[in-house]
């Protein structure tokens, strides 16, 4: 599943303001609301659900990347966003490193395959160190979007 199929372009955030796990999640969910991808009434419920999932085990999967996520009945299809934190945030990651690159995903409860395919794409593409590095160095949302498009066009295929 290509990035363009699930990343809500208007919700991409370079230079995240947040410094804690909950703040990052709140900021990115807020971005999805601003982009019209999720219902504002569901905002706090979705943040809570994502934080609850984090309690089961950090989604900081290593290499400075995290994939905070939840299922939620208010979405009809998988929606996601990308955020970059310049300084990095302590996400209690599996490799204990700070996270600079966030892919936040909200998916419909009855479509587990979509979530898996999004995770597949994220992890496959990020095997490329160059892409990983460029994303973390992105200064604007447009830069991030451009990189994701290039990734979708297999320009970083390894």
């Amino acid at each position, binding site marked *: 599943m290509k990035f363009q199929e699930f990343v809500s372009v208007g919700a991409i955030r370079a230079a995240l303001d947040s410094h804690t796990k909950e703040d990052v999640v709140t900021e990115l969910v807020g971005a999805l609301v601003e982009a019209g991808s999720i219902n504002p009434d*569901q905002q706090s*419920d*979705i943040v809570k*659900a994502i934080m*609850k*999932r984090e309690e*089961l*085990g950090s*989604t900081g*999967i*290593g*290499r400075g990347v995290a*994939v905070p*996520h*939840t*299922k*939620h*009945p*208010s979405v009809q299809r998988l929606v996601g966003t990308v955020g970059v934190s310049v300084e990095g945030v302590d996400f209690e990651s*599996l490799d204990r490193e700070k996270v600079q690159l966030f892919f936040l995903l909200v998916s419909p*409860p009855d479509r*587990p*395959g979509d*979530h*898996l*395919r999004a*995770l*597949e794409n*994220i*992890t*496959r593409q*990020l*095997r490329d160190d160059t892409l990983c590095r460029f994303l973390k160095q992105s200064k604007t949302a447009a830069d991030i979007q451009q990189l994701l498009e290039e990734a979708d066009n297999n320009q970083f295929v390894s």
Partner: protein
Amino acid sequence: MARKAKTVVVSNRDGLHLRPAHAFVKLASQFDADISVTKNGETIDGKSILSILTLAATRGAELEIVASGGDADAALEALAELVENGFLDEETEESKI
């Protein structure tokens, strides 16, 4: 050098997403044996969570687990059991309104 292989089927509803992938890797890492997982002809390192996630193994997917090295037998048995028990990934209701 012991090399053992077994094919298992992913049985839990949500497939091999982050939580079960982590359970698999955590268990695999407890063994000295090298562990690989193959799906549809693609083989990856079974001790790498990022690699496991690249497989996008949905429910019903067949995985061949190969363990090589000293404790390969024990490793294979433990990992096969984990997969066959659905990674203990009960459907939690993460998002009730």
